[in-house]
């Protein structure tokens, strides 16, 4: 049928290539079209060369490129919108995450919501869009499609970010999601990425900086694993992080900067790399902000357990005293004691309820945080460095209720206490107010900033110290009353 030889077809095809036609489907079609026209001319008696020359002249030189451009722009409206959205989100969502971190750090309301929105945008919208546009681009350029790589990368990213969202919301399963996501990212996606890049370069005969690629992949994998260790509080996190950041600083970054200075070509990959590094850095910094080094922890735990023990000690002594007061039948004394005991109980009950609420917030639903006796186990808080919840309860929700309760208790007990030493103690030690060094802040605010603006473990010892002080004062006054009564009776 065809009078055109295979060789001639190949020549036409390579001529088309030379004119910059890359969209494969269009290329095949135009090749067929040109061949048909040539065949027709040859049927009328022309030789191949003359016929081809004639068709080419009719076609014009720049036409092929223009046809491709028109075709792509006609069928691509949706795709272009998608790409614009993707780039927009790629810029906006990391900014939201950073702003959310600042909000959380400064205790401004809305921080958690912003963080959720930012992570959701990155994980559930930006990532899939990025992969979808990449797949289309690759197909359009008639390159081999590393589908496995795209799917692995996308799922690993989505699972990790889903895990982070679960973690923020304290839903069960967060740790499993984060572990799976980050492990796949570090041990499957990154090596796969390197091997696909190397294979592609080899196939196209392009030069590739293998050292850069491999050092980058190793540093990236270590960074990811280090972050995982840190989030999960597994032993060895410190070493992994130290090694990975050193690898980044000493090997990867110098290579990267040098390599990019040499050829500022592959902009999309640069964009991705910068985004990944920025996100990793943000996660790392957040992890550091939200958990305290181990050495600090025992420093917080010791005073807390001491204050708790003291409070418990007095709490056990008090029933004997109040029994004695009841037995005495002295109504005045009974009323006074009742008033003081009521105020003391109110404070201690409130403090315990606040502690319990924070515990419930700190732990996932499937985690145990009570000891064998059913009490809150402070040592379980070891790695839970949340600094927001207590502030939220004490200041924002309950509007300094604890402060008013303590003030009230102070006034009552000061009016009842006789012993000057006890009075002095109540005056100075009950509230242990910070020194007034800022006239613009109310006393309550200074108090809250001093004691409830830090890690929960630190504030927990303050709370327990209040319980212990309140019980001590209660005990002292009750015994004073009893003593007085006994003296009068004699």
């Amino acid at each position: 049928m065809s009078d055109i030889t295979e060789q001639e077809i190949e020549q036409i095809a390579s001529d088309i290539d030379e004119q910059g036609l890359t969209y494969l489907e269009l290329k095949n079609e135009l090749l067929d079209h040109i061949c048909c026209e040539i065949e027709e001319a040859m049927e009328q008696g022309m030789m191949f060369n003359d016929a081809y020359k004639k068709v080419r002249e009719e076609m014009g030189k720049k036409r092929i490129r223009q046809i491709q451009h028109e075709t792509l722009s006609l069928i691509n409206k949706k795709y272009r919108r998608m790409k614009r959205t993707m780039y927009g989100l790629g810029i906006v969502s990391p900014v939201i995450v950073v702003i959310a971190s600042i909000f959380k750090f400064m205790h401004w309301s809305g921080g958690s919501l912003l963080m959720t929105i930012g992570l959701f945008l990155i994980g559930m919208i930006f990532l899939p869009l990025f992969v979808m546009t990449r797949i289309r681009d690759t197909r359009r350029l008639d390159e081999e499609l590393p589908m496995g790589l795209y799917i692995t990368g996308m799922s690993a990213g989505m699972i990790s970010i889903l895990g982070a969202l679960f973690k923020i919301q304290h839903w069960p399963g967060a740790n499993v999601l984060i572990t799976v996501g980050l492990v796949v990212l570090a041990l499957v996606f990154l090596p796969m990425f390197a091997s696909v890049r190397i294979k592609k370069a080899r196939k196209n005969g392009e030069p590739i900086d293998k050292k850069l690629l491999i050092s980058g992949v190793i540093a990236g994998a270590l960074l990811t694993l280090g972050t995982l260790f840190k989030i999960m509080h597994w032993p060895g996190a410190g070493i992994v992080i130290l090694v990975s950041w050193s690898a980044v600083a000493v090997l990867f970054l110098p290579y990267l900067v040098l390599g990019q200075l040499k050829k500022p070509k592959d902009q999309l990959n640069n964009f991705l790399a910068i985004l990944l590094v920025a996100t990793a850095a943000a996660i790392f910094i957040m992890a550091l902000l939200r958990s305290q080094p181990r050495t600090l922890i025992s420093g917080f735990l010791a005073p807390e357990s001491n204050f708790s023990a003291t409070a418990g000690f007095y709490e056990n002594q008090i029933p004997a005293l109040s029994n004695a007061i009841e037995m005495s039948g002295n109504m005045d004394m009974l009323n006074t004691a009742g008033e003081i005991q009521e105020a003391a109980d109110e404070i201690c009950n409130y403090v315990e309820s606040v502690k319990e609420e924070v515990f419930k917030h700190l732990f996932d639903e499937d985690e145990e945080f009570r000891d064998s006796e059913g009490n809150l186990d402070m040592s379980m808080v070891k790695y839970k460095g949340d600094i927001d919840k207590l502030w939220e309860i004490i200041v924002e929700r309950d509007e300094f209720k604890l402060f008013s309760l303590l003030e009230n208790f102070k006034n009552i007990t000061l009016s009842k206490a006789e012993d000057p030493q006890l009075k002095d103690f109540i005056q100075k030690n009950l509230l242990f107010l910070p020194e007034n060094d800022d006239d613009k802040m109310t006393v309550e605010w200074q108090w809250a900033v001093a004691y409830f603006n830090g890690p929960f473990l630190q504030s927990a010892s303050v709370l327990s110290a209040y319980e212990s002080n309140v019980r001590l004062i209660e005990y002292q006054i009750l015994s004073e009353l009893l003593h007085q009564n006994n003296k009068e009776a004699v």
Partner: protein
Amino acid sequence: MISNEFLKGTLKTIILHLLAENKRMYGYEITRQVEKLSEGKVQLTWGALYPTLHKLEADGYIVAEEYNIGKRVRKYYRLTPEGDKASTEKVKEFAEFVRIMKQILKPSPGLNLNYE
């Protein structure tokens, strides 16, 4: 020759109609068919034809099947059910357009210079 300006708006209609009549066609065949039907007065440039074909495909009006012919690949297009509906509609719409154009361009009675 019919000028490109007129063809621009009707190219989709022409392609859809031809495919409705002929079941399946490839690009070169379409240009030839149009040339034949118009007795050489309409010559589709491929610069107009192929982008329109791809657009119709992207919109779901037509589907393509590729066949290997020796070293070449030939791409045949065929209407989808949706394209079939669109073809009828477009042709009807265009007939309406022609009727209205005739009405607009009809010489007014007073100025009848007697064509016959």
